[in-house]
């Protein structure tokens, strides 16, 4: 009799544990999209955003649909970012007619400093000011420089994180992917 009770209790406990595990798994699955603020993966769509540029214009990423876009996240304190920006600045001459649109996104709160660095580097492309780091969070930028290559439909087709990327490499990628 005691043995039967013990078995019943063990079965009940096993059932409870299984249900608890299942509930935890379901909760995990549901919470995953909220908790995982991961960078848009290659092959996935680049989230849309609008930011003010150093020249006062407001620019929205989705308005560049139909163009190949290079998004470069940078900050003035990041030395390698300056090399990348210089490379991207020479991209139009390197790529010729197939030159992509380059948008620099500065992740600092100080717009004046960003504008001054952009001017000192002689950047010909727009520098967008993400003073509230909202776009940085949207793209989960944890390392700089971060350069993303977007195709004409706004899909991420290449990503270079924490490394310099040359203009030639981007041109080669554009040609390889036939963007």
């Amino acid at each position, binding site marked *: 009799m005691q043995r039967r009770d013990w078995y019943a209790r063990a079965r009940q406990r096993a059932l409870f544990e299984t249900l608890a595990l299942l509930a935890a798994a379901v909760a995990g699955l549901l919470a995953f999209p909220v908790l995982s603020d991961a960078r848009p993966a290659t092959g996935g769509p680049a989230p849309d955003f609008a930011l003010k540029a150093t020249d006062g214009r407001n620019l*929205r990423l989705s308005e560049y649909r139909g163009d190949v876009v290079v998004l470069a996240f940078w900050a003035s304190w990041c030395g390698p970012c300056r090399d990348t920006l210089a490379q991207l600045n020479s991209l139009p001459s390197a790529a010729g007619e197939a030159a992509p649109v380059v948008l620099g996104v500065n992740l600092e709160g100080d717009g004046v400093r960003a504008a001054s660095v952009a001017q000192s580097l002689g950047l010909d492309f727009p520098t967008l000011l993400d003073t509230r780091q909202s776009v940085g969070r949207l793209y989960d930028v944890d390392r700089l420089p971060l350069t993303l290559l977007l195709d004409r439909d706004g899909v991420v087709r290449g990503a270079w994180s924490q490394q310099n990327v040359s203009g030639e490499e981007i041109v080669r990628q554009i040609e390889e992917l036939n963007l």
Partner: protein
Amino acid sequence: MSSSINRLAARTRWRAFAGALLVCGGLLLGTAGHAADPVADLRSVDQDVQTLKKQLVDLNRDLFRLEEELLYPASTQVAVFLSLDVGTFFALDSVTLKVDDKEVANYLYTEREVQALHRGGVQKLFLGNLKAGEHEIVAFFTGKGPHERDYRRGTTLKFDKAIGAKYLELRISDRQAALQPEFVVRQWE
């Protein structure tokens, strides 16, 4: 016993062979049919693709409607729209919208979007849910005012949300007499 097993195995093999022959025959016939008129076949495939595309667009529209109905039921739905009437005294840059002292929208306008508003476009700035009762909406408009001066103005409205959807409109217009822009919130009946 073993002979009956062997017979069964042989019969199964024969059936599999006959089935494979039938499938191959069907495939060959199908290919031959395709080869008969490739142009007509391509046309038909193109038509199928177009039909499929149209069905996909319809399905997407229906799903969008369904999603809106589920997420924002008419009993709690509140929508805020923005429109621009003339707007020669104000160049719109951004709008921050607060409902019951909570920021619900912060929108930055590009040149193209402002042009669309000037042409009569109406933007859905916010869509959300509010329970029945009294609520307050506050909108802050930032841009360039007369003489290219930085301009920031706010407007507010207290409204009663009853059962049924509530539609509000933020309207930017010109007050010719004062040569100043005017910002109004109005309720759609």
